[in-house]
């Protein structure tokens, strides 16, 4: 692949419990567990790698507990990783492994280099603050100090994510789940981050609401040209939003490829089982 990636992840690993690497010997897809009998620790993710280009969306799919959120949280800095490298094109032109930055520098990346949309809107939003105020937090963190311009920008973002203008000054805690997710998207996009991570963005929403939010996400990904990582256990979501994807099982990537190809012709038995279940 050429070097036009916006996000590059390599050899990313996360072990809960003892860092004893013998845990790698009796965990993973072939063994059928993420929990090591030798060390007692859990290998939530190991040797995970991929690149994402601007305008591209990469899917991460797998069953519950396969390590999808772990990968996302390690990239985002919500969780320390055990090993690996994460590079962002906007940080030192991709030369710095951001996992090695100090916590404060790491947190600053979340202002405008990297944004996250969580399954639970309460993780990405303050429910006791208005929709506009939540966006103002992202903007003021990036140095915005003009009240009128903050208002205008918040209104523009909420319009793009289809939140009625009349709700802009209401507390997010009074919003429905689907509406909260739209506000979370608006906040995540506030400073036009080049990289966007979405962890099960529509899980937990009613089917009809989820469809609307998915539609919105697809449009936003197209319009913004952001490099996105979409984590989901649902092939319908991955199929709709991504062109390439990786399949995770017990903390490891078992297959990677074009999403269409993978859905039509899965190679790994685990992928075959996942696709089979989705098609049933």
């Amino acid at each position, binding site marked *: 692949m050429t070097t036009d990636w916006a996000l590059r992840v390599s050899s990313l690993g996360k072990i809960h419990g003892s860092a004893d690497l013998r845990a790698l010997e009796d965990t993973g897809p072939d063994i059928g567990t993420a929990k090591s009998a030798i060390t007692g620790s859990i290998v939530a993710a190991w040797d995970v790698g991929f690149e994402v280009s601007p305008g591209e969306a990469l899917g991460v799919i797998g069953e519950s507990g396969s390590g999808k959120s772990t990968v996302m949280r390690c990239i985002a800095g919500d969780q320390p990783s055990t090993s690996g490298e994460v590079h962002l094109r906007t940080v030192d032109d991709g030369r710095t492994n951001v996992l090695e930055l100090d916590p404060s520098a790491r947190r600053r990346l979340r202002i405008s280099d990297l944004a996250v949309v969580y399954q639970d809107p309460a993780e990405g939003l303050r429910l006791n603050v208005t929709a*506009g*105020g939540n966006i103002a937090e992202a903007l003021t*963190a990036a140095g915005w100090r003009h009240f009128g311009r903050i208002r205008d920008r918040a209104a523009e973002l909420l319009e793009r994510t289809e939140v009625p203008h009349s709700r802009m000054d209401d507390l997010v805690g009074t919003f429905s789940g689907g509406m909260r997710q739209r506000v979370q998207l608006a906040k995540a996009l506030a400073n036009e981050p080049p990289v966007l991570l979405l962890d099960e963005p529509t899980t937990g929403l009613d089917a009809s609401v989820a469809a609307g939010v998915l539609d919105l996400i697809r449009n936003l990904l197209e319009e913004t040209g952001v490099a996105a990582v979409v984590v989901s256990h649902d092939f319908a979501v991955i199929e709709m939003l991504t062109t390439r994807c990786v399949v995770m099982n017990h903390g490891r990537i078992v297959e990677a490829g074009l999403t269409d190809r993978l859905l039509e012709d899965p190679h790994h038995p685990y992928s075959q089982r996942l696709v089979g279940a989705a098609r049933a």
Partner: protein
Amino acid sequence: MNTPLLQQVLDRTTPVDDSPASHLEVNFGLLDEYSKREIRRAILTAVAVPGYQVPFGSREMPVARGWGSGGLQISLAIVGPYDVVKVIDQGDDEGVNAVNLRRLIVSSTGIPESTTPEDSTLIQTRHRIPEDPLDERHTLVLQVPVPEPLRGVERDMRELARMHAEADYARMWVSLYEDKVRNGVITRTTGYPCLVNGRYVIATTPIPRWDVPRLHRSRFLALFGAGREKRIYAVPPHTDVEPLTFEDVPFEVEVTPGASCRTCSSTESFLVEIPGATAGDGGHWVCSDSDWCRRNRERLQHPSRGDRS
């Protein structure tokens, strides 16, 4: 740090044999020397890192915590035999609390007291900065009930420490944004958050907005003491103190159009409203700084005398 400032804190605290202190039955300034040294150390740190809240081992004082014990400890730790003390509460030298604190300082040091800033060197205050211009002779000691400016947006101590350490004040801005959205104006009055020396946000509690501009590049040293919360912070002379304000929403001090002091007719001082005694009486305004008001009145009555400013 420049030497005069250090001396302001240190030199004045050396009692000499012919000082009034040699006749006292208690230790000069009530506190034992070890306590004074510890508090002074905290003060020096606070001066060296303007706006940073320095923890200190707050003592039990003969006043209830929350009644000026933080300010009192600072005053007693830095007071020297050549100081003249002024204490105000709500701008008034004669308030019960002000009188008690002043008595305590005077009786434990033997130093003179005054109500006039011109004659004072150590001014302990709750709620106000005197109207008179202060200069390098003055040290202003403010009694602070709530030192943490971010208290309204975050309660977790570790998160608060992180926010200050990283100068992450976005949520403070959000609270100002929400105030303006909800009320059309920024309603926050006392304790207005200010950025000190371009680095730390402080609560200018308990002074009104009226007094905030007078902390900016002031000629005097301002020390803030919170006894209950065990914190000391400082605004050294000539330090930037900028109220957090949006570029398009100017910072405004409290002004009531048309109001003037009933006693001295002033329209140029910070006025407080005295409610009417009866339903028909609409109430009236008076200067909050009662000593300034008295001198202003005298000046108007006898233009030739007593005008020292």
